[in-house]
């Protein structure tokens, strides 16, 4: 089982490499990738340096071109695919059928991974991308239970990568327009969710309020920790009750499920967070490298597991973690 780690910058990539990531995924500096945030992602010079380091250390580099292309600017997506192929990356992560078709026709030797944004949750959907574009791997959306992951693995010959740790999308990735409904910008088309430019913090008499596109996402008392106003993680009112109507601010953590994921035959586990700091990437990669090494060597990790969990909790949204949809009771 391979460890796939995020890098939104060269220092983050270096941290992931030094802590033992098997593969690092990055994006170009434009809206062709689903983490199109200000100041994030790698330019040409940084990519060259990244690739050099990765080759020296015998690791792999994946490039995400995983937003949905629009007719105005289609050439941008084409160019991104061509650049990835020219760089000789180990995989291109894409979601758009048009982009996948272009990549598979123009660069038949380029390894294609279906992005989580492709929203393939069943064996037939995987067969579509496999037969038409010869994808070599698919990243599963974070909506499947462990039993469902097992079913998909058993009924598909596409190797599977699953999310192991990081921010939790509660909606099926690629199937969520909440952000564009409120801000006009969506993950599918703009590579952003609840974009920072739409965020407003307001100090009020009795605490702090967060707004997105003018909509009140949450209000915090002085003693409450405030989280980034992602639409699905605010407190709203349903039937007179105020609560986290969709999801609490919490992170996905599947450390406890690693042996199950290995038994199922999952080929890679993915850490979310290209928007995170190098220090975050370093600490998370270190824990997961140790956990995977222990598992692969068949070692009893015993007490160590507790320490790992503590480290991961500290790095999590609201210091909370969940097994998410992998565990039925969460659903």
């Amino acid at each position, binding site marked *: 089982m391979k460890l796939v780690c995020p890098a939104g910058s060269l220092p983050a990539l270096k941290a992931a490499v030094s802590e033992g990531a098997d593969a690092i995924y990055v994006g170009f500096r434009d809206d062709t990738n689903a983490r199109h945030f200000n100041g994030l992602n790698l330019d040409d010079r940084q990519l060259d340096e990244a690739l050099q380091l990765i080759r020296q250390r015998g690791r792999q580099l994946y490039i995400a071109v995983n937003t949905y292309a*629009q007719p105005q600017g289609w050439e941008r997506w084409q160019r991104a695919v061509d650049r990835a192929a020219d760089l000789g990356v180990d995989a291109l992560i894409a979601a758009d059928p048009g982009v996948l078709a272009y990549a598979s026709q123009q660069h038949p030797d380029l390894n294609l991974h279906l992005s989580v944004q492709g929203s393939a949750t069943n064996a037939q*959907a995987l067969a579509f991308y496999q037969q038409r574009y010869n994808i070599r791997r698919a990243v599963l959306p974070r*909506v499947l239970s462990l039993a469902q992951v097992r079913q998909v693995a058993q009924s598909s010959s596409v190797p599977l990568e699953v999310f192991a740790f990081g921010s939790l999308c509660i909606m099926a990735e*690629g199937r969520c327009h909440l952000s564009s409904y409120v801000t*006009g910008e969506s993950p599918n088309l703009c590579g952003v969710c609840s974009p920072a430019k739409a965020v407003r913090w307001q100090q009020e008499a009795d605490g702090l309020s967060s707004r997105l596109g003018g909509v009140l996402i949450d209000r915090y008392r002085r003693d409450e920790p405030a989280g980034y106003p992602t639409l699905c993680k605010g407190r709203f009112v349903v039937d007179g009750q105020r609560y986290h109507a969709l999801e609490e601010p919490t992170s996905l953590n599947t450390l406890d499920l690693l042996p199950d994921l290995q038994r199922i035959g999952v080929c890679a586990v993915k850490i979310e967070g290209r928007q995170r700091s190098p220090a975050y990437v370093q600490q998370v990669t270190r824990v997961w490298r140790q956990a995977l090494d222990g598992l692969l060597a068949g070692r009893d990790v015993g007490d160590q597991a507790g320490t790992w969990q503590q480290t991961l909790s500290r790095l999590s949204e609201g210091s909370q973690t969940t097994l998410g949809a992998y565990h039925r009771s969460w659903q």
Partner: protein
Amino acid sequence: MKLTLGPVLFYWSRPHLLQFYADMIEQPLQTIYLGETVCSKRRALSLDDWLGLARELRQQREVEVVLSGLALVEAASELSALKRLCDNGELMVEANDMGAVQLLAERQQPFVAGPALNLYNAHSLRELQQCGMQRWVPPVECSGRLLQDCLQQLDDLQVPRPEVELFAYGHMPLAYSARCFTARAENRPKDDCQFCCQNFAEGLLMESQEGEPLFTLNGIQTMSAKVCDLLPDYPALQASGVDRLRLSPRAEDMAAVIARYAAVCGGAQPPASSEGCNGYWYGQPGMLYVQQVSS
């Protein structure tokens, strides 16, 4: 311009559904979509029931009936149900998941690409056309500009345009999740939901803490709280290459909604404005209403 009735997105009881369609067959609709697109646990009507209903509707008058498939297909049982749907042998299917596209392509069955498929450019549309797509319902967040660009790009690629059906009226489906938000609101686990979404004929309103209507909770689906209404923008839709308008069923007054749309399709002046939203069409946040100033 043709008028179509989208699938019922809410969980209505069997008598409610049958009464609704008995009313709808009297309306000036060219196409009616049947079937469950949101949750596989909703079984007020089985596939055979839907097929039987389709036959009855078609006996009463000439109307196209399409069977819509589930949008989020996870469990093996859901995939088997989707296969049976694609094997129905009578009716065209609306694919709302790439799994359905694959099944229909294997069977060489023409299909409608539903709004839950991510098709945003002509290259993707061409891929789906090669699989048998006849009609395209763009994602709800697609703007008029993006729609026109896609059609132009198809022309540039010398690919024939599919029929275009635009989501024009109703609560817009915005997201799908593993979690059932209605069950969550009712403090029930999803596995013991007791079909509580059936208590809410038009979903459950979710507001901000300031009382601003934001979303409609409909089981695992999150919808817009506001009702999309593109009737005032009818001339723009017509000029943009839209062939059909999809009206999404609501619990009340659907006949009146259809009558208003039918009148405008028949040549009446569109209304000057609407209380609904149309932001997506103008490339704005979907929840907004953009007032077009006539020149």
